[in-house]
Structure formats: structure tokens, C-alpha cells
């Protein structure tokens, strides 16, 4: 075995596993600072209007209260400059909510005050004493009303090549003239990320112009940039720590009102302020997968070739920020079809701003597209797998470029075999197991194999330990573990000699964790930094040792306390001596995205999910009895953590398909599903044993590691696989998620 193959592809246990199982992993609300104070937010009780008055007297007098901050007395935030617009007019393209900046209420439970006290109990009590009076205006939170005023996103107007701009290949709406055609509407409700860790922040002004945030974020640098801007500070004056992030699934990709509020509060009381959201506030103010209406029109020839697809989507956004996502992207590139067109619109409502949720727009889009594929297969009397094979593409039909790699056919085959696809009956409702109806369904997922730019910082310690540092976060996929494996192989060291440190804005630049891009992006930087350090050390050793001077870096071997050469154990250069020659032994390398390859190839990860469901015809209960997820995600760095991530995506897909929905009471513009008793997510008893299969073929073009990304394709396509299986079991086509029992009886 070559040393560089030793750890990549293996099953290394998580490097932070010990910390996580002993309770020693420190999440953002768990740092101890002297003088800690506690903040509790007070939310508006109307969805739209103006704050007439806030009576904070009782709260201010309550025991232990340090401050009650509202827009009447908030410290001025320099970044909250006036918009210059008529403030009575809602913004259509705007920015983040300016907390405690004006009297406007833009959504229900918008923070209108924050109470800071010396203990959590006192802050919570006092927050209930704050009373506000409003001049309420008529709000609109009903999507059906929003749809009537749907508009083209500004981003699409500015850039016709944007993924949310209208797209036409061949003739638009050509399906309407097809003889075998379907037209159907698909709806997903608002879904909430609900990571187990509540959104939390500790804001600490270490000096009037130096801010430290222990914050739940997916991007330490993005958070640093946002709040440096908000407070008009140089970025280096803001430090963001996010070592452990208790899940996020997208909701920590944006900076939110509670973060601004905690920073304002810390400024006001001149003490560190800890702010932890409640579960209800996780619904109302830190993003969600937007309620989305979609329509698919599709036509096909008698021999099962798609002749046209039209995909329309309208997603919900807030009145003050335009949030867009790639809902219609999969339709443009997944299947061969001479005529494809997509339209994406937004509906602005009096709600808080949505944010990407795992498998962002694609998971929403795939529910429509992959359901429609199933419907068309039935129309053509074809096996849905066969129908997909007949429309398989060997190059990207959107732009004619070759795929950097595509092993989706292999996925189809592996998955079909594992689920027992041959047991599936074409005629719905024809398989039974006792009282249960049994059905099989499939759904395909894809997501861009993105690679951004990243740096990595590496240094050797005298004891032979190698320390790498990156600003990247690890929200759960096992980034630290994968990077340790990559470094171990690059250096020929055992993983316990590598220490990968992450989650700190002062470490080497790395992108925000999201979009399945971290191993693709930070992985090569780590690899290149390790190789560069090896070469640097060899050169340094070569200054006094001819053997090193003439050696290649591939021959360099890291022994316990000295550097040596493969095949020449006599050549030695002690780390202590080498490190004397450097300023701390740091090597920083910047790894750039592969610009040229991006132009030449279309880069995507692919997945297919097969579901076996049991439906009780009397109660309408759906049980997912088996789920097989197959992924073409390039090289799998860690079979254990990658497999886990796929299984988790599948469980998320079960939630999306069968239970998750944030229900709005439009009379008040407030969610009634305010906690985990009302908003259902899958629990142990809802999850089947998920089978995961990887093609595990390296992609030759994304990066030298061959990775493509897993996080998103783990969920994209799962919900339609289940919906299609429910149809196969019952003959009932459910086009509005979630598939709750009432829709089946």
C-alpha cells in the first residue's frame, strides 16, 4: 500500500469524537467569561405595522436587570445607515433586518426589545414584563395571495445567466403541443432547519473597537465581515469563534437579528452578553426552507424520450430581503430534452427571510421534477428507472460541456439491486404485506461540485506533531476528521500526529461551510500546504546536509523527532534544529479554484434514492421500511463519516416527505408550529436502517483528491422517492408535502 493511500478512503473515527461523547466539546453558548450577562429577546406580536410605544419600566425595575434595549434607546449601529427611501414603503431588495433601528415591524416575533440581566432566570422573567403598543397594518402571510404578485428576482434582472433567470432551450412551453403530456403543480410547505443546538451567541466587546463573538455560524469569516461592517470596524478587530456547531443545515449561513441584538446589548451593558434563542424563535427569525409553489409541464414520445419540460417555481421571501435558490436547476441539466424552459419567481410576504436549507433549492425542485418523471413513466407505461435511462445524458444538456465525471447509471444499478426493484409492480396498489400496501419509488438528486478558494496554514512542532489551522467550521460532517486524513496521507504521518484546528476567524481563510464544497475546497489547500511544508523543510535540511539537498520531497519521511529520507535512514535533520531556522515553522498556502477546468467541464455530484414504503390503507400511516441511497460523489475520504452523512440526509428526506411543515395562522401571521411537539421531525422510530452505497470513483477534474461533495445530494431526491413509492403502493399521487395520513384516507 502506498503511504498516500493509507487514510483517505478509510474509516478513521472522528478526531473530535472523544470530546463529543464526554460532553467536553464546547458549543457557542458554553464559554465562560467573567461578568457574563444574559439576554432574552422580546418579539413583536403583530406581523406588520409600527411600534407606537414600549413600556419597559417594569422590566427595568425587575431584579438583576442591566438594560432593556429598544429602538428608542439602542446604541447607534454605524452600519445601520438610513436607506433614504420612504420608510413607509416596504423594501423589495434590501438587506438584513436592522435590529432596534426603527419602529417598523416586518414580521411576527421580530425582535423589538432585548432584556439583559445578570442571570438567565431574571432576564427571562423581565422580558415578559415588556409591553408594546402597535399601530397594526394589514399583513399578508398567505402564499396564495403572494403568488398573485410574484415577481422576477432582482438578481435575474441584473444577470440573465443567473440560475434564477428565465432559461429556454429549444422552444418554451413546447410540452403543450405534445401528445403524451402532463401538467401538474407541486407544493412544499415552509420547513424549518431545527438543528438540535439553539442558535446561540456570546458577544464580548474586549475594547470599544474590538469585538469577540462565540457564535453559531457556518462561516467564521462571513460572520466577521457582516459585523465588522455593521460596526464600521476593521475586520481584524472582530474575532469569531465557532469551534463546535450543533447542527445548522443552512440556518447559520446568514447573519440574523439575534446576533445584532446581542452585540448591541453587549455594547450597552459593557459586559459579555449571552443570547440563546428559544425553540419558537428558531422558527420565527433564523431562516427556513421557503414555501414554494411549482408547476411542471412535460411531454414525451411513444418510445419514452422526453420532448419538452417546463418548470416554474415561486418561492416565498420576506418583504425586506430577496432570498433566491436554485429550485429549477436540476431540470435544466438532468435529462436529455430538446425543449426545456424554467421560470423562477419570488413572492414577498410579511415574514422573516428564508435561508438555504440542506439541499437548498434543488431538494425543492427535485420533488417536482422527480415526481413528474414518475408520473410520466406511468403515463407511458414504463418502469420509472427505464424511463430515466432512456433520457440519460452523457454531457450537460444545459451547456453542451462534458461532465467532469458521472456515474449515475452505476448508482441506478447498485441501488435497484439493493432495494429489490424487481419486486416492484408497475400497477399501483398491487403489492401487500398483511394489511399494509407496499410500494417502491425512486428519486434522483444532483448538486454542483463546487470548489472555491481556500488557504491552509501548517506548521511542525518540535515533538513532530503537525498543526493545521483553518477558519472553516465543522457543523457535523466531520471536516476536521477528513482534513486530518488528507494531511496524514500528504505527510506520511499517522493521524494522531496531526492536529487540525478549525472554527476561528483568525485561522487561514476558508469558505463558509455549505453547498457541499468544503472537502472540495479546503481539502486541496490542506494537501498542498502539507506538500509545501515538506519541500520547505527538505530545502532547509539541505542547507547543511547534501542528502536532503539532492532528494525529492516525495522521499522525505517524518520520524519521531527528525526528518529523514526514504531509503537513506542515515540522513537526519532534527525538528528542533530545523525549527530554529524559521519563525515558528509556519507555512501558509493558498489553493485556488480550478478556473480552467470550470470552463471546460460541468461538475456535479449525483445520487439516487430508492424507497420501500408501507401504507396502512385504513389509517393512512406511511412507514418507510427501507431506504437505499447511492451516491456518485467522487472519492470518499472517510467511509464512516460520509456514510453517516448520507444516512442523515435520507432521514431529513423522510421528514420532508412525511411530516415537516411549519403551519402559519394567517390571521395573525404567526406560526402555530412553534416547537418540536408541533413541528415534527423524524425520531428514531421513524427512521429505517438506511443503506448507503458509494460509487467511490475519483473525479479527475474537481481537485487532486477526486472529491465532489455529499451533504446536499444526501437529501435531494429522497422526498420524491418516498412520494413515488406512496403512489406505487396506493395509486394516490400526493403533490403537496408532507404526505400526512389525512391525504391518504
Amino acid at each position, binding site marked *: 500500500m502506498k503511504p498516500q493511500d493509507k487514510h483517505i478512503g478509510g474509516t478513521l473515527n472522528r478526531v473530535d469524537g472523544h470530546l463529543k461523547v464526554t460532553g467536553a466539546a464546547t*458549543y457557542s453558548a*458554553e464559554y465562560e467569561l467573567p461578568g457574563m450577562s444574559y439576554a432574552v429577546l422580546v418579539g413583536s406580536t403583530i406581523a406588520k405595522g409600527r411600534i407606537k410605544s414600549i413600556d419597559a419600566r417594569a422590566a427595568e425595575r425587575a*431584579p438583576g436587570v442591566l438594560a432593556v434595549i429598544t429602538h428608542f434607546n439602542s446604541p447607534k449601529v454605524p452600519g445601520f445607515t438610513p436607506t433614504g427611501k420612504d420608510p413607509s414603503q416596504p423594501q423589495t431588495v434590501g438587506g438584513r433586518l436592522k435590529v432596534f433601528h426603527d419602529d417598523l415591524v416586518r414580521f411576527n416575533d421580530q425582535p423589538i426589545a432585548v432584556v439583559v440581566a445578570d442571570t*438567565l432566570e431574571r432576564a427571562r422573567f423581565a422580558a415578559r414584563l415588556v409591553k408594546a403598543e402597535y399601530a397594526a397594518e394589514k399583513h399578508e402571510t398567505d402564499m396564495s395571495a403572494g403568488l398573485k404578485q410574484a415577481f422576477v428576482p432582482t438578481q435575474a434582472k441584473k444577470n440573465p445567466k443567473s440560475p434564477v433567470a428565465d432559461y429556454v432551450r429549444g422552444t418554451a412551453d413546447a410540452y403543450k403541443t405534445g401528445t403524451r403530456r402532463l401538467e401538474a403543480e407541486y407544493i412544499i410547505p415552509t420547513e424549518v432547519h431545527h*438543528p*438540535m*443546538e439553539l442558535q446561540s451567541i456570546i458577544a464580548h466587546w474586549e475594547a470599544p473597537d474590538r469585538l469577540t463573538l462565540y457564535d453559531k455560524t457556518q462561516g467564521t469569516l462571513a460572520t466577521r465581515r457582516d459585523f465588522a461592517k455593521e460596526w464600521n470596524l476593521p475586520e481584524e478587530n472582530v474575532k469569531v469563534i465557532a469551534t463546535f456547531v*450543533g447542527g445548522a443545515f443552512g440556518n447559520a449561513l446568514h447573519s440574523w437579528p439575534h446576533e445584532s441584538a446581542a452585540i448591541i446589548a453587549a455594547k450597552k451593558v459593557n459586559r459579555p452578553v449571552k443570547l440563546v434563542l428559544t425553540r419558537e424563535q428558531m422558527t420565527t427569525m433564523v431562516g427556513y426552507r421557503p414555501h414554494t409553489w411549482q408547476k411542471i409541464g412535460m411531454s414525451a414520445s411513444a418510445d419514452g424520450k422526453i420532448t419538452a419540460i417546463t418548470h416554474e417555481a415561486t418561492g416565498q421571501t420576506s418583504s425586506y430581503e430577496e432570498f433566491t435558490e436554485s429550485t429549477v436547476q436540476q431540470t435544466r441539466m438532468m435529462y436529455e430534452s430538446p425543449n426545456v424552459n424554467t421560470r423562477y419567481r419570488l413572492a414577498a410576504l410579511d415574514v422573516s427571510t428564508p435561508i438555504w436549507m440542506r439541499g437548498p433549492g434543488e431538494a425543492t425542485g427535485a420533488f417536482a421534477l422527480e415526481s413528474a418523471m414518475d408520473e410520466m413513466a406511468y403515463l407511458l407505461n414504463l418502469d420509472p428507472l427505464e424511463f430515466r435511462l432512456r433520457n440519460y445524458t452523457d454531457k450537460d444538456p444545459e451547456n453542451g460541456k462534458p461532465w467532469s465525471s458521472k456515474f449515475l447509471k452505476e448508482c441506478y444499478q447498485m441501488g435497484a439491486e439493493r432495494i429489490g426493484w424487481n419486486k416492484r409492480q408497475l400497477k399501483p396498489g398491487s403489492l401487500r404485506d398483511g394489511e399494509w400496501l407496499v410500494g417502491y419509488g425512486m428519486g434522483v438528486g444532483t448538486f454542483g461540485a463546487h470548489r472555491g478558494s481556500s488557504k491552509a496554514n501548517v506548521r511542525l512542532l518540535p515533538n513532530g506533531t503537525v498543526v493545521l489551522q483553518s477558519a472553516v467550521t465543522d457543523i457535523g460532517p466531520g471536516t476536521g476528521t477528513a482534513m486530518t486524513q488528507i494531511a496524514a496521507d500528504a505527510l506520511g504521518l499517522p493521524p494522531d500526529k496531526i492536529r487540525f484546528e478549525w472554527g476561528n476567524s483568525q485561522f487561514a481563510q476558508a469558505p463558509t461551510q455549505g453547498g457541499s464544497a468544503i472537502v472540495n475546497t479546503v481539502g486541496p489547500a490542506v494537501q498542498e500546504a502539507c506538500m509545501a511544508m515538506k519541500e520547505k523543510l527538505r530545502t532547509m535540511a539541505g542547507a547543511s546536509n547534501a542528502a536532503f539537498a539532492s532528494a525529492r520531497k516525495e522521499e522525505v519521511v517524518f520520524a519521531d523527532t527528525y526528518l529523514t529520507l526514504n531509503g537513506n535512514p542515515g540522513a537526519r535533520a532534527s525538528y528542533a534544529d530545523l525549527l530554529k531556522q524559521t519563525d515558528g515553522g509556519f507555512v501558509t498556502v493558498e489553493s485556488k479554484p480550478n478556473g480552467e477546468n470550470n470552463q471546460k467541464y460541468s461538475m456535479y455530484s449525483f445520487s439516487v434514492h430508492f424507497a420501500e414504503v408501507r401504507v396502512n390503507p385504513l389509517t393512512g400511516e406511511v412507514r418507510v421500511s427501507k431506504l437505499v441511497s447511492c451516491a456518485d460523489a467522487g472519492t470518499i475520504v472517510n467511509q464512516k463519516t460520509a456514510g453517516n452523512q448520507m444516512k442523515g440526509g435520507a432521514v431529513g428526506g423522510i421528514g420532508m416527505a412525511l411530516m415537516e411543515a411549519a403551519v402559519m395562522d394567517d390571521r395573525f401571521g404567526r406560526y402555530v408550529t412553534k416547537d418540536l411537539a408541533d413541528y415534527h421531525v423524524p425520531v428514531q422510530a421513524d427512521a429505517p436502517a438506511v443503506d448507503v452505497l458509494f460509487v467511490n470513483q475519483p473525479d479527475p477534474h474537481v481537485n487532486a483528491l477526486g472529491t465532489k461533495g455529499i451533504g446536499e445530494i444526501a437529501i435531494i431526491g429522497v422526498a420524491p422517492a418516498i412520494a413515488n413509492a406512496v403512489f406505487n403502493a396506493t395509486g394516490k399521487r400526493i403533490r403537496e408535502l408532507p404526505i400526512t395520513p389525512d391525504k391518504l384516507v
Partner: protein
Amino acid sequence: MNTEPDLPANHDEARRNFLKQSSLLTALALVPGPVVEAAAQNLDERVASAFEKVPLKLEINGKKFKLDVEPRTTLLDLLREQLHLTGTKKGCDYGQCGACTVHVDGQRVNSCLSFAVMHEGKKITTIEGLADGDKLHPMQAAFVKHDGFQCGYCTPGQIMSAVACVREGHAGSEAEIREYMSGNICRCGAYTNIVAAIQEVKNGGQKV
């Protein structure tokens, strides 16, 4: 349902409010010296401590604690905010997610749903008290081996629940484990691996 008054009716709080109001709003000009002095010496806080807090004895992870806590403080907030035992997690505060699971006299309990003062004299075990020094409890080791987590936030609660699940005799089959572990939500969806970890411990015959 909500019977909380707008203002504290309690005599002691009222007294402190008087001190506070007096000192903060009008003290310097209007009130006599002793009140100003009382406020300056934080007398209101001292009065609060004496009247609002009750004594509480607990044994946590084998260590005895003599505490003064407010009756409204939950066991979870006591552990996390006052004793800095942050291994026990807050995921919902409503007993719906299980992240705060601890053992009270050997029973699994959602610490967010119980007030600290309800546990006078009881023995509490948290995730920090499960390992034997540096040696992981078999359930902790099995969670690492089977990768029974991703972000790790629900993990302490899962492990405390898993240990109890085995001790209760509710780990007889995969289906039984799934049923008796359904009070612990893992949003990352590591359920299959959690079951594998529990089964290994159950079948491994080690003392749990």
C-alpha cells in the same frame, strides 16, 4: 393559563423595587441617605439572595454540592449556567428533544423539565460523570466506534438515554431500541448508527 402578574406582588421584590427605583431614578435628589447607601452597597441584591434562593444539597457525578438556588431554576440551567457542566445540552427547554437527559438516582430525566429544587438529596449523573476517569464508558466508546453522531449536540443526551435504555432492559431488539430512544432527537439523522452502538453494548456483555 398565564397567571403571572405584570408586576411582582411579592413583598420582598416590592421592597427591592422600591430601593432600586429610588436609587436609580430619583435617589440623589429626593431620598434620604440610608436608602442611597443601601443601594450603593447592593443591599437589594443581598435581600434578593436571602429571600429568593433556597438551600439545596445535591450529589452530582459523585461530588456533593451545597447550593443556594432560585426555585424557578431548572436542573438544566443549574448544571449549565451555574455549575458550568455544559455537557448536558439545551435543545428545546420543553422536554421534546432529549438533549438534556441526565440520570437522577439512576432514572433518565429531561433536566429541562425539572426544577433543581425538586432533587434535594438526589444523585445526579451527567455525561461528564459517565466515564471512569480517562476510560470511556462502553456506550461512549461504542458511539465513537459506530459514529453515532455528527454535530455532537444531541450526543450527551443520546448516550445518557442509551445507557438507561440498556439498564431498563429496553434494548432487546432494533425495534425496541428505536421505540425507547425516540425521545432523543438527532436532527443530523445518525439514528442507524446510534442503534448499532446500543446493540453492540447490549450484546457485548460489559457492565453498563
